[in-house]
């Protein structure tokens, strides 16, 4: 754990509340299981023994109400995009979005298709983009570590549970 921390004897440490909350949050990123296409196979592989995603406390949830992170893994069609927005709004604040693979980033391979949304950032704000078709499990892991870094910078107590570095606020303020 980085940040303000003083380790005293007697097995205890002193730190700021924010740091402790952030540390707890980042060590239990529960993500919404959201595989929309072939990238989901690689997402499952990330849960496998080699790049064990569970070891950083990330486990999948099948309901948005228990999830902190939405991993959009795969092609997003217009029909699906409406459901994604719905699920995104059902997630509790503070929430994060990771877009995995070229399809979710920009439409990728289906750039000229009539039914595919050209990037999930057209409908929801995205924190981290992981490129690749599909990204290797290591890349997705890197993405989640990036999310952890973003999480460590939050000041939840000061902002009353709101995200300070929320991309949404950047979108709508100017």
């Amino acid at each position, binding site marked *: 754990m980085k940040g303000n921390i003083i380790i005293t004897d007697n097995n205890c440490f002193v730190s700021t509340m924010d740091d402790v909350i952030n540390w707890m949050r980042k060590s239990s990123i529960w993500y919404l299981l959201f595989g929309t296409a072939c990238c989901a196979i690689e997402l499952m592989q990330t849960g496998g023994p080699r790049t064990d995603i569970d070891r950083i406390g990330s486990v999948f949830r099948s309901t948005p109400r228990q999830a902190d992170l939405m991993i959009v893994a795969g092609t997003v069609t217009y*029909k699906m995009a409406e459901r994604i927005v719905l699920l995104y709004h059902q997630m509790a604040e503070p929430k994060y979005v990771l877009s995995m693979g070229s399809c979710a980033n*920009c439409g990728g391979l289906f750039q000229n298709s009539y*039914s595919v949304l050209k990037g999930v950032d057209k409908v929801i704000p995205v924190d981290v983009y992981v490129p690749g078709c599909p990204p290797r499990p290591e890349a997705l892991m890197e993405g989640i570590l990036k999310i952890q870094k973003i999480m460590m910078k939050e000041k939840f107590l000061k902002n009353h549970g709101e995200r300070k570095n929320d991309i949404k606020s950047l979108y709508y303020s100017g």
Partner: protein
Amino acid sequence: MISKVYTILVDRFGEDALLYFDDTLNPYIQVNPEQIQMLCIFMRYNPALKFSFFFSLCGVDYPEKNQITMVYHLFSMKQKKMCVLKTSVSRKNPELESIESVWKAAGWFERELYDLLGVNFTNHSNMKRLLLPDDWVGHPLRKDYEEPSFYHDMETSRNRIS
């Protein structure tokens, strides 16, 4: 092979309704669009033919000929033979008899064709879009389909910077 099937069909439906082509990889039989349902019933239940398995139904758009061609792939478990039927309808107002009553599996193929090419199948039990949302405008696999720039307030291209 298929020429034998063709002779049986000609015996029943006459020479002028059917044309046989074997210059392609899979020989095919060109059929009159009005007769497609009768022909399918005959091919399925005739003891010498017994085309009991419906492989696929797909459509091809030919804007220069102003027609849409339907391609039926049938398979006979009895003869271990595949047969390809083709039939063409006009592009303006494509309408064809449904063969859902002959092979139940054809129902979804026909819905897909309606969805993507806009072919209307009469006497179909549930003629609505299969893959695309119900409020979609147009039939995207037509060659002259133009994509609108917005669908439900979502931009459909990445070129524009808002």
